[in-house]
């Protein structure tokens, strides 16, 4: 909730007492209280518009009767609302009848048939024989882009698509054109649609004028089988509706039902159109063994047997620490839990981890430190009610597009202020009255956060006495900020004093604050210190300021949070329990064994290095392609070459899988049951919608069989049983698996150990001779690296991988958009197409990662931080 509470009004609808916050449109209040009013153009996410004129109600205010449109008329104390009076029906019916003059009534072949408000309203009002002569339009459908079809004959000019594109997505790709009798919805000059392809317009369109061209079937969406699940791409955790027909995954839709999921019926391009991979021809369908350099099909029992024997013999010969496992950040919680259980219980090895944890183990610590300081962070559904949002080092429309939707909703309905801090001049379009843009010098994340803290302290923007009392090491921390004088802060961050002060004032004012941290921060050579600096800023306003602060650790994939919660890390057992005698004993009890005897080695922390050194003899990679996605590609290559036995479980052949000894085909998210935990700690179900491709099997089953083959079977067999065991072992997850909600797990203890995280000094990035540019890379709006490359729809809209260069740099190098440019680091070089713009700061180049053709991680050669590169025009 925003710190400004809204007054609650008492009033009557159809003589029934109801309540609603002041200012809410009558229509919204009625719907929330279980009444229905005819309407076609109202959506609670959007500003009232009153285009369709079919929602008239009668309102008595102080005895005075009025006929009003319920979508724009706000509720107020004591009013009496009557729905469906004779008089309002007459007006509402007439408007519906007029719409039916032009609307084609081709319902049997319309995607919206069965879920169409025009159908529902016509039915509800009993309009079966209109009075007017039918006069249909006959325009051809417009298919000038590969994803969204415009069939404007069905359009009723409600303006929902135009508004959602502007207000929710901030893109404004659509507008009304040729207003008047010939008005149509469309793009400028009928150019092909070129937008973020979020497809929100398809969801909100009430009549099927906008259609999803990636859909494998047309018409009667109501007859498709709907399976509610959770998106398998980024860590935001959107609820998706998988629509299937005859065993085929037809399409993915959003569902705007109030209170369903955390995404308010919003999806992005990846989530909505990225379903092509599920039933792709290229899926791995059978287990395979590498026999003398070529892969040969084997049976599942052969595969399981071989793996069990090899793992067991490695343990016998080299000890449990000789086997290690990387669990995918896309595994379900149940699978991740079994994964670490297989290693810890059946093999006695503690060498389990996940890719984010290898790269940045400090992210989990960051979360722990938030809890220690009493920063529990609210559910993300409250983001739309926040007063201030700090978007720190995240290109939100690319990284968490639906997060951007919530922020924009907050801007419209709560008046949220936005602070956008990024080394690139990324665009976040919103209607915010106060949007502070801090385009800071590359790498100075930490200096920026510390400078903001310093300003808040110097200007006493929060109650410093309160902060000092609440946090023991306050004095030491303040002292450590001494070097951030105004001059120094301006020099390091490249921002003016005025900008910094404005941002500090905005962040420190009494407010409910949200901090959204992007994964870009891990690129920083001092990522840990940068996160700590940000944490300290949050602790300062949390302990000294008014309102609240919510901050979440940066996570990349759909279950990056969950795999860590489930203890797939060498540092923690499930539930972030330190590995000590007590917690090991508790775990042993839950697992029905006498004693949990874990190896004392720590090979997983530097897993790839330890593969090369020979300490790890067998590696089980489940659902990851580190050769492409881990930030040090060449290190992984050496590691996988060296490790004697490599098992890869994946849905597709990948560069990593090609180096495996045994490949196991795994199920996609649409073919299995389980739960994902998103970055904001909401636990949400995924459900089986289609049968697995070929003989692919869920990791869940495979892990069970492996445990059996190792002679130490798990004591819990079904998913429900495993969930019950998780609830016992990780008390925070108690009750999280039941029902259809999206519960957020709460830390069992908060505020127990407050303290600022005082870290090293800021080191300015060093120049590397001959390589004057810094390479910045992150996920693209259409690609996130797990399987998006196998989705044709996303490939067609994303085009080819490009390198973004600042205008000034391009001018000196005589490079124009479309030119081929050679990008070189000490380690690697590649040729890409240039995209010249003002987004990248001078002295930096930006390449989105996760295109398979050009592996960006090969540019890095051991070093941390932004990779120095040079660019030149390729011949």
């Amino acid at each position, binding site marked *: 909730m925003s710190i400004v509470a809204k007054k609650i009004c008492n009033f009557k609808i159809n003589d029934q007492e109801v309540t609603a916050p002041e200012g809410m449109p009558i229509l919204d209040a009625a719907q929330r209280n279980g009444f229905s009013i005819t309407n076609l153009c109202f959506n609670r996410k959007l500003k009232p518009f009153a285009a369709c004129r079919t929602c008239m109600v009668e309102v008595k205010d102080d005895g005075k009767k009025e006929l009003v449109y319920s979508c724009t008329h706000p509720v107020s104390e004591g009013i009496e609302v009557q729905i469906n009076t004779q008089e309002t029906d007459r007006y509402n019916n007439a408007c519906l009848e007029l719409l039916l003059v032009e609307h084609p009534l081709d319902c049997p072949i319309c995607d919206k048939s069965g879920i169409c408000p025009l159908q529902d309203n016509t039915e509800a009002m009993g309009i079966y024989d209109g009075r007017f002569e039918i006069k249909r339009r006959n325009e051809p459908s417009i298919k000038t882009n590969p994803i969204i079809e415009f069939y404007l004959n069905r359009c009723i000019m409600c303006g929902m698509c135009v508004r959602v594109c502007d207000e929710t997505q901030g893109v404004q790709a659509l507008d009304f054109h040729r207003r008047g009798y010939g008005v149509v919805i469309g793009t*400028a000059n009928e150019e092909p649609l070129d937008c973020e392809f979020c497809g929100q317009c398809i969801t909100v369109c009430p009549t099927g004028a906008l259609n999803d061209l990636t859909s494998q079937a047309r018409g009667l969406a109501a007859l498709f089988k709907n399976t509610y699940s959770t998106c398998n791409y980024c860590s935001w955790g959107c609820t998706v509706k998988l629509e299937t027909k005859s065993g085929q995954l037809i399409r993915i839709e959003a569902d705007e039902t109030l209170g369903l999921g955390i995404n308010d019926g919003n999806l992005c391009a990846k989530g909505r159109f990225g379903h092509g991979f599920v039933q792709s021809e290229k899926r791995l369908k059978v287990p395979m063994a590498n026999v003398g350099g070529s892969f040969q099909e084997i049976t599942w029992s052969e595969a399981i047997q071989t793996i069990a024997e090899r793992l067991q013999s490695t343990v016998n010969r080299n000890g449990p620490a000789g086997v290690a496992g990387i669990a995918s950040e896309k595994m379900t919680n149940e699978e991740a839990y079994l994964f670490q259980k297989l290693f810890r219980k059946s093999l006695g090895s503690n060498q389990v981890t996940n890719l984010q944890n290898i790269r940045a183990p400090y992210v989990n610590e960051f979360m722990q430190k938030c809890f220690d300081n009493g920063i529990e962070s609210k559910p993300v559904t409250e983001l739309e009610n926040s007063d201030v949002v700090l978007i720190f080092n995240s290109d939100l429309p690319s990284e968490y597009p639906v997060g951007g939707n919530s922020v924009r909703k907050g801007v419209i309905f709560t008046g949220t202020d936005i602070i956008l801090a990024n080394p690139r001049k990324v665009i976040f379009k919103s209607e915010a009255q106060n949007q502070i843009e801090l385009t800071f010098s590359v790498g100075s994340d930490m200096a920026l956060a510390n400078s903001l803290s310093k300003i808040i302290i110097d200007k006493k923007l929060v109650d410093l006495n309160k902060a000092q009392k609440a946090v023991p090491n306050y004095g030491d921390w303040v002292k450590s900020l001494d070097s951030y004088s105004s001059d120094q802060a301006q020099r390091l961050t490249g921002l003016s004093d005025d900008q910094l002060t404005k941002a500090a004032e905005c962040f420190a004012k009494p407010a409910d604050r949200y901090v959204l941290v992007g994964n870009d921060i891990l690129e920083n050579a001092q990522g840990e210190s940068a996160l700590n600096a940000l944490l300290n800023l949050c602790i300062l306003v949390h302990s000294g300021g008014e309102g609240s602060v919510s901050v979440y650790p940066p996570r990349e994939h759909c279950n990056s949070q969950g795999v860590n919660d489930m203890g797939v890390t060498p540092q923690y057992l499930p539930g972030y329990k330190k590995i000590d005698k007590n917690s090991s004993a508790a775990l042993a009890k839950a697992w029905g064994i006498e004693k949990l005897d874990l190896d004392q080695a720590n090979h997983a922390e530097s897993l790839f290095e330890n593969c090369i050194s020979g300490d790890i003899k067998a590696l089980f990679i489940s659902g990851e392609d580190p050769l492409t996605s881990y930030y040090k590609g060449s290190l992984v290559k050496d590691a996988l070459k060296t490790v004697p036995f490599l098992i890869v479980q994946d849905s597709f052949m990948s560069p990593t899988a090609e180096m495996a000894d045994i490949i196991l085909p795994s199920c996609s998210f649409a073919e299995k049951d389980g739960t994902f935990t998103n970055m904001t700690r909401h636990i949400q179900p995924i459900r089986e919608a289609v049968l697995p491709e070929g003989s692919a099997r869920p990791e869940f089953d495979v892990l069970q069989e492996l445990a059996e083959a190792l002679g130490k079977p798990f004591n819990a067999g079904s998913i429900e049983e495993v969930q019950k065991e998780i609830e016992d072992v990780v008390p925070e997850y108690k009750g999280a698996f039941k029902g259809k909600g999206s519960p957020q797990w709460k830390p069992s203890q908060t505020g127990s150990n407050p303290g600022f995280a005082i870290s090293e000094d800021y080191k300015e990035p060093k120049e590397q001779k001959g390589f004057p540019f810094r390479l910045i890379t992150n996920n693209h709006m259409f690609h996130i690296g797990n399987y998006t490359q196998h989705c044709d729809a996303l490939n067609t809209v994303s085009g080819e991988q490009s390198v973004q260069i600042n205008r000034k740099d391009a001018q000196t190098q005589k490079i124009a958009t479309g030119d081929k440019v050679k990008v070189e680091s000490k380690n690697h070089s590649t040729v890409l197409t240039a*995209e010249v713009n003002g987004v990248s700061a001078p002295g930096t180049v930006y390449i989105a990662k996760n295109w398979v053709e050009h592996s960006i991680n090969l540019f890095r050669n051991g070093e941390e931080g932004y990779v120095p590169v040079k660019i030149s025009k390729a011949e």
Partner: protein
Amino acid sequence: MTTTETEVKEETPPEEEEFDYSKVEEIIDSLPQKSRRHLIPVLQRIQGAYRFLPEEALEVLMEELRISRAEIYGVISFYPGLMITEPGKYILKVCIGTACFVKGCEIICNKVNEKYHIKVGETDENKLFTLQTASCMGNCGAAPILVVGDDFYGNLDPEETLSTLGSYEDKE
């Protein structure tokens, strides 16, 4: 779409004349605030400066006022007075109000079409005339009315349309 800002044309091919950005920049700079509230007056002033709304000027406007292409063209398509192509040297306005209609405005339009091959909204090959219609000029006593550029012709004999226009051709 990637997260690039709206593209400003990177380079103009050498054979084309360099676009004169100074006029549009001056117009935008003179605004009390850079807000979409001022869209219509700005469009009018840009058209006043360039005689129509050149794409290059609109791109600057989109970037400065943070308006999308769709929105800007949505507004332009509503007003026949706003033009996105360069009009002829003289804009012909044929009144098609009731009185002018009775007095033969259709003949005027046909005559223009016969000689210059332009229909309403079009410009002839030599970029001399652009044909437009007007709903009523408020001077029905002088019907039919033809306006050529800034010159007003009342009580025009439709048969003399071409000779009237011929004098403008001679001026070239």
